[in-house]
């Protein structure tokens, strides 16, 4: 914690002012755009209805600007949770596009709808009872065999993953490739919604990754050893002692720490 009582009144005033300046600069992000400052506007169509919105917003923030209070179709707002799956077409284009509302900038003439939920099967299994074997994937997801390699899933993926490739890796029992290619999956469900073979790609990948993580390489020896030491109570005395130290003793120990070599 900082030194107390050292800063003069004048300095205190300055620091308060700095905080206010920071807040002022962040206002657009925190409490919304001010219309008079917006130079460029675009028109988007939310489920068919047109709204004029500032051009530098994402689909998510543009819909909020237009007056939508989200209770579905929003989560982390930063591209990690997969809650804000969106389908859109631009006027005059044949292509149906996908994106996360929080990660996609608005474009003029966008017609969009959110898909906040994907009906999908998620079977129950106990990872301890499963074999590290491709048959496990087919047992729980027999529809895997229906893949027609159309690549629609890959085109639908807002993370730009090679979804069809990992489905093919799953079919071949190549767990490493399945895990590697699907690792960045945010389970938004867009691949499954678009799949003509009704495969739930992201759930297949989830099972595949768990099998790979659990069985492909053993738990490191250094972890096993540490767990054993903890079980034997090797650190009990030391830990008991350290929790009793005074603040002063702890401060000294902290200051005297030796940093591990880079």
């Amino acid at each position, binding site marked *: *914690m*900082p030194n107390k009582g050292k800063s003069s009144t004048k300095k205190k*005033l300055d*620091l*308060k002012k700095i*905080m206010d300046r920071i*807040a002022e*600069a*962040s206002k657009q*992000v*925190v409490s919304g755009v001010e*219309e008079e400052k917006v130079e460029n506007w675009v028109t988007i169509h939310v489920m068919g209805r047109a709204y004029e919105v500032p051009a*530098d917003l994402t689909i998510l923030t543009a819909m*909020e*600007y*237009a*007056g*939508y209070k*989200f*209770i*579905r179709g929003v*989560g*982390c707002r*930063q*591209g*990690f*949770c997969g*809650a804000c799956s969106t389908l859109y077409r631009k006027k005059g284009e044949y292509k149906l596009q996908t994106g996360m509302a929080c*990660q996609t*900038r608005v474009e003029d003439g966008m017609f969009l709808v959110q898909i906040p939920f994907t009906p999908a099967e998620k079977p*129950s299994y106990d*990872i*301890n009872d499963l074999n590290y074997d491709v048959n496990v994937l087919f047992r729980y997801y027999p529809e895997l065999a229906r893949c027609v390699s159309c690549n629609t899933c890959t085109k639908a993926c807002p*993370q730009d993953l090679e979804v069809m490739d990992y489905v093919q890796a799953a079919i071949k029992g190549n767990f490493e490739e399945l895990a590697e290619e699907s*690792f*960045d999956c945010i389970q938004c469900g867009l691949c499954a919604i678009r799949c003509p073979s009704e495969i739930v790609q992201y759930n297949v990948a*989830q*099972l595949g*990754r*768990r*099998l790979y*993580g659990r069985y492909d*390489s*053993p*738990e*490191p020896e*250094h*972890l096993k050893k*540490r*767990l054993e030491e*903890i079980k034997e109570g090797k650190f009990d005395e*030391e*830990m008991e002692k*350290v*929790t*009793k130290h005074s603040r002063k003793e*702890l*401060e000294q120990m902290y200051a005297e720490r*030796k*940093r591990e070599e880079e």
Partner: protein
Amino acid sequence: MAELKYIEGYPEYMYKLMQKVHKTRQKRKDYIPKPMSMKEQKEVLNLHPDYAPGGKRKISIGQNKGDIAPDPVVDLLEAYPLIESKEIDISSADYNVDVLVIGGGLAGTTAAIWANNEGIPKDRILLVNKLRHGDANSIMAEGGTQAADREVDSLKRHYIDTMGGGHFTNKPDVLRGLIEDAPFIIHWLHELGAIIDKDENGNFVEKWGGGTSIRRLHSCKDYTGLEEFRVIRDEFRSREIGCIEHYPVIELLTDGKNRVTGAVLYNLETGEYKIVQATATILATGGFGRLHIRGFPTTNHYGATADGVVLAYRAGAKLRDTDTVQYHPTGAAYPIQIVGYLLTEKLRSSGAQPVNVDGESFVFPLEPRDVEASAIIRECYIRNKGIKTPTGLRGVWLDTPMIEEKNGKGYIEKAFPGMNRMFSRYDIDMKKNPVLVFPTLHYQNGGVETDPWGHTTIDGLWVAGEVSGGVHGKNRLMGNSTLDTMVYGRRSGISAAEWVKSGKKQGKLTLKHQKRYVEMLKGAGIKPERRSPILLPEYRGKKALARMIDVF
């Protein structure tokens, strides 16, 4: 304003300024500023939003009367409930369970699984979520999870690092629990099938974290929280434990004395309420980033609105360390669409340096977070060596190309696919060019006080994860939050299950605590202008809001 010309995703003037970073890179490669002494740390911390004057006040009612907290938090504590007892019927319960878990991030989901492991049947556990199961800060954790499992490391060392990071204010017995269980949690994740980064010998790749004295950070690329959570949620779903979504808790129920006995749920879509009667209740509702304390943008998810602290406080639980807020040193400052988003500390532990407008490396890249954040604020607002964006924000460069300079070509795509993807969506190549950063509101350091099993000061109520206070003291270290969620999720799940198994009967359902709280509010002269919990932040456009009418 004239139309800006863009080069490689940046306005031309920023692109020109950036050339200094490229020019000085070789020189900076071997010159890294030394860590600050404790005196220098104290000096720069005067600039931290927690310690700079303004923005906070004393709590005027309840258990923590007289304690300092940020204004938006006090506003929620000094607010009236969403429901009045005469409005709702609590005479019978819609759900009757042994263990109610409120909040489905890593902490809540882990708690439910461990209550189940301890013998509570799947249909006697209920996990309720404000949004979807997984709409949580957990899933956005990028950097990693600390655990002292290398031979050269020790539990004591992890303890000292964390204590120092927390300015020696951490609650010792609770911190001890965190440290001692850490290796087991990594083991548990491995057993569940989480893919944790390993080297060619099959050992974990362990990275530096800010404020640590040794490499101790386990990660899953830069999607650590996502991978941990995906695996744990899949396990939860496989067990078919009870779960409902889009049903926030708007009030806890008590027996009128010192025990929590259930909760009132609210269907966000239909407006209907439901009553849960529970023998044990675990609160795992996360933090408060969406309160935008001191006007900062945030890394937090949409639902991080301090609900749990409000509910627990009203029920009579004690809070601690409410005066400190964690600002992550490196939030994105450009482009406007991603301002405040998290740029993981792991970037710095892999070689990226904060660099000012003159191309100077001005701070040791891995100070504890509050120190690092304060140094960046100083560079931008006292020394005036920041870079201004077209929307008026200031920031410093984070020299990401240095990562590949140190670790070899291709490293960023492999280790930071999430970051790389985020910037490429805005035409910025972080492998080639630096990115602009400024501190962002990240974490609720304090919260509901607990014992080493997550139990609060009231019977029948446990807390786990960010909603709790004590384990991190006044400043959390990197890699200790995901650890906290799983250690205390597990401990609270086990402890709650034991309580149930000891033969505890369910308690009466009343709102007497709420009535008492309202009397205190009135007694303190607080007018019924605010209501809480707020559940969700308000981002609707002002123009649209001004014309809104309520018909149904």
